[in-house]
């Protein structure tokens, strides 16, 4: 696990990243030379049509998928040089992930779900910190509930608490409101942006929702595995403040 040089203020850096997968019909190029830099504390939205490579790019950033070629440096780590277990430890220390389908562990309570990454990090106060995280997302009264006993919005709030509890430097969110109604989705987004802002977290958001994308500092547009626009202007600060 090589500790690459960490350019000042850079949280994520992708250099000419390609990713091909084999299929019955031959090789498919999913990412075709991605160059992307995300500053520390920066919030970017990734948009693009389905199949454009958004989720794959996020997986590459999270160390869940290895690129075929190119360099990936995240939180100062050169991911290409890290093994499967080293990548797991890297995620544990630096990355929080929020899914469209929440992906809570059904056999664990809300408190236990949020405690998982803290336990993995061997935090002695895992359950206290988890309880505090749930309290901060308004689920202080649902600690001992199982996922099946929570509403969709509550499940996603629980997932947010789990992603933010270890205080990661980077949070990756894949369509986090895709499974929620508009009102609940609004609440979740507000909460997520608030958490990211308060903790100075670098935030990568995949979304199809343009209005949601505009709340970020920058919009990255992907088409057919290529970034066609990495610096699309987001809203003005005033608009953003109003939105938040």
């Amino acid at each position, binding site marked *: 696990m090589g500790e690459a040089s960490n350019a000042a203020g850079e949280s994520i850096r992708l250099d000419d990243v390609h990713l091909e997968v084999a299929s019955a019909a031959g090789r498919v190029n999913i990412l075709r030379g991605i160059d992307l830099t995300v500053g520390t504390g920066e919030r970017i939205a990734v948009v693009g049509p389905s199949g454009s490579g958004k989720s794959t790019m996020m*997986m590459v950033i999270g160390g869940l998928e290895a690129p075929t070629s190119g360099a990936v440096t995240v939180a100062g780590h050169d991911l290409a040089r890290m093994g499967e277990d080293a990548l797991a430890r890297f*995620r*544990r220390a630096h990355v929080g992930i929020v899914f469209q389908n929440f*992906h809570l562990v*059904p056999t664990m309570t809300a408190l236990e779900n949020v405690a*998982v990454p803290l336990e*993995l990090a061997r935090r002695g106060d895992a359950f206290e910190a988890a309880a505090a995280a749930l309290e901060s997302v308004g689920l202080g009264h649902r600690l001992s509930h199982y996922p099946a006993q929570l509403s969709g919005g509550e499940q996603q709030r629980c997932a947010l608490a789990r992603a933010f509890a270890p205080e990661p430097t980077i949070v990756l969110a894949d369509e986090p409101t895709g499974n929620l109604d508009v009102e609940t989705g609004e609440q979740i987004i507000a909460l997520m942006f608030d958490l990211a802002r308060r903790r100075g977290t670098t935030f990568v958001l995949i979304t199809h929702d343009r209005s949601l994308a505009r709340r970020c500092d920058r919009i990255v547009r992907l088409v057919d595995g290529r970034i066609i626009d990495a610096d699309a202007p987001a809203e003005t600060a005033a608009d953003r403040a109003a939105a938040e």
Partner: protein
Amino acid sequence: MSATVLAWARRELRTGLKGFGIFLACLVIGVGAIATVTSLKSGIDASLRDDGRAILGGDLEARLALRPASEAEIASMARLGTVSAIARARGMVEAANDRIGRVEVQAVDDTYPLYGELRLETGLALDDAIAEVDGRHGAVVAPSLLDQLDIAIGDTIALGEETLQVRDVIAFEPDAASQGLLAGARVIVSHAAFEETGLIQPGSLIYWHYRLRLSDGDASAAMTALNQANPEAGWRLRDYTEAAPQVQRVIDRLGVFMVLVGLTALLVGGLGVGNAVRAFIEGRLATIATLKCLGATGATIFALYLVQIGVLALLGVVAGLALGAILMIAGSGLLSGVLPLEISVGIYPGALTLAAVFGALTALAFSLWPLSLARQLKASTLFRAAVMPPGGRPRAADLVAIGAIAALLAGLAIATADRPDFAAWFVAGAIGAFVVFRLIAEGLIRLIKRLPRPRRPDLRLALSSLSRPGTPTPMILLSLGIGLTVLVAIALIEGNMSRQVDQVRPADAPDVFLIDIQRDQEQRLREIVAETPGVEDLVMVPSLRGQITAFNGIPARQAIVAPEEDWVISGDRGVTYEAQPALDRYTIIAGEWWPADYDGPPLISIYEDIARAFGAEIGDRLTVNILGRDIEAEIASIRDIEWQNGTVNFTMVFSPNPLAAAPHTSMATVRTTTQGDALFERAIYDAFPNVTTIRVRDILASVEELLGQLSAAIRVVAAVTLVAGTLVLGGAMAAGHKRRTYDAVIFKVLGAARWDVVRAFLVEYGLLGLLAAAIAAVIGTAAAWGVITFVMEADWYWLAWPIASTLAIALLITLTLGMVGTWRALGTKAAPLLRNE
């Protein structure tokens, strides 16, 4: 990390054992089968060991055929300890109501039994019961004789020339297991009464047993001393460690078979365990991927599920051991009715430990593959619409671990078996079957991928399901195939055992044997046969007993070159002499018969097994002890004998001159009709009370009863394997259920009618079932052939019906299970599933 893993495992297990029913059931059946078999074997061994002296009737026994021991021989025995003499003979008895019955007479002295206790139903002492009272000797008899003759205690029976009073019924005979199959009901009398019967005639087939309670207890030293003092005694000496060789042989053979069955149950159970773990892991894929996204390493995931599987395996093993202990008690009760000994019921820690180790290793070996694949599950699958079951192979280190555990399991099975060669064949066969089914599954998948896609959507769905990425085809084919193989093998073994009964008696076999015919009775016997309607084909030959003592002057035991044939020297064998073969029943394979008027030095014709035992050739010399005299004869011919045809035959036939002058009796066979049977028996009894008639039908009934009990045991085994096989199948189906539900929902949404979906699944499982059945028929037949030929040492018959019916039933079960699963899948509401996906 370990504390975290344990805490997570506890959290997951907290939700209960749902979905682990098949896992636990398979393990309980496998461990239970091994625990029962090994415990029963331990119990029987313990009985034979602990009660060996009671079963033999002494520390050691010298058995003589046809003659009692000489005074010098008795004196040499008496110098070593207390001697108890008993005589055993077959005879006929007649009740006052004119009914007659066959008996096995045992004459005993007042020291009988030296060990153990003979119990009588009314509690009388044996000495009192058989004593002479008011000029009449007493007898105690087996309960069956009272029914057979319709008499009661206090009535009289005539045995030879003596009338005996039945004074009591035998409740338990300690030395019953030392004798083989009885041809009649046991009657115990005193020596004085036995002498009065007139059954003791020169050459009568009477066995004299001399049992010793040794002063210093060293049986092997005593045997050496006895042989040195009486080199020409021609007796068979054995000590308490080999008290019941015939029972031991049956137990050993049955034990080998039962252990193979136990291992089969464990193997099939192991498959079920593997399927259950796979299904469990499939249900946890999202959780595993989530934990990986949260930073859990592959090792953490592996440990988390290994701990859970371990806890459940422990539960299954403990339950299996408890089941084994209970079945051991039940089984020993059942077997005590079949075997002539009381099985020591108890907990045998060695047997249970072995079963536990087998169970734990099996659970581990079959769980590691799916656990290893879980470790490799890519966290990125969470970002895809459906989390696919992990495919491919475990990583190299895990494959090595699986191989090492499998090797340990195989090694343990072979090392702990009474017959390591059979266990090794079993292991090789199991591995071979696994490889064959796996290769054929892979071949099938490749073939289907190359086939053009059919136009019909149901066929297309069926074929694509069989060959899609992550298809359960190999797993289902393996589970189904191994299950069917076991069922085919069991059905064929059962069918063969039943067939043995039919083959026991060929059409031209004699119906009645007569033994102990005195020479002055031979002419009258011929007349009776001629006079009695329905009786024909009399064959009469001299009958003696002899024991091989030397070959070319070398003591027999040292001269043996083929140890597997050493039974030829283990005791006395039937011997006769003949100038010319009475019938064309001898098949000479080497040498030639002596001339009809041959009067030179002794010649002998021997059975080919004897020749093989010593590596004998024509012209070699064989020494046989007959009536205490060693007779050395030159081997003139070697014969093959078809024992199955039921005619009288002898392993050794002498030329007439050395034996014609020796005191001996003859034996004869006749063929009778049912009516002639009763008339003949009566006529013989009236003319010769000393001659015993033995009806082949009665012997066959005993053999049939024994084989019937064996068949019952095999049917129980078949039931166990059927349950295990069905569980495995159920597990395989459960493992694919999630996929089937998803497919069914999608097809329903697309407008497919229920029947369209059902048809697709029927084609899929029908194809798998037919393929598995065809392979199982071949492998199962080979396995059954091996068991029948080498374990049971019986003749093999290829039977089409058991194969066809077993496969048909098994296919029906498969399709029914598939249908039930599919119907359940079709009942799933589409909305929740689609929303979650």
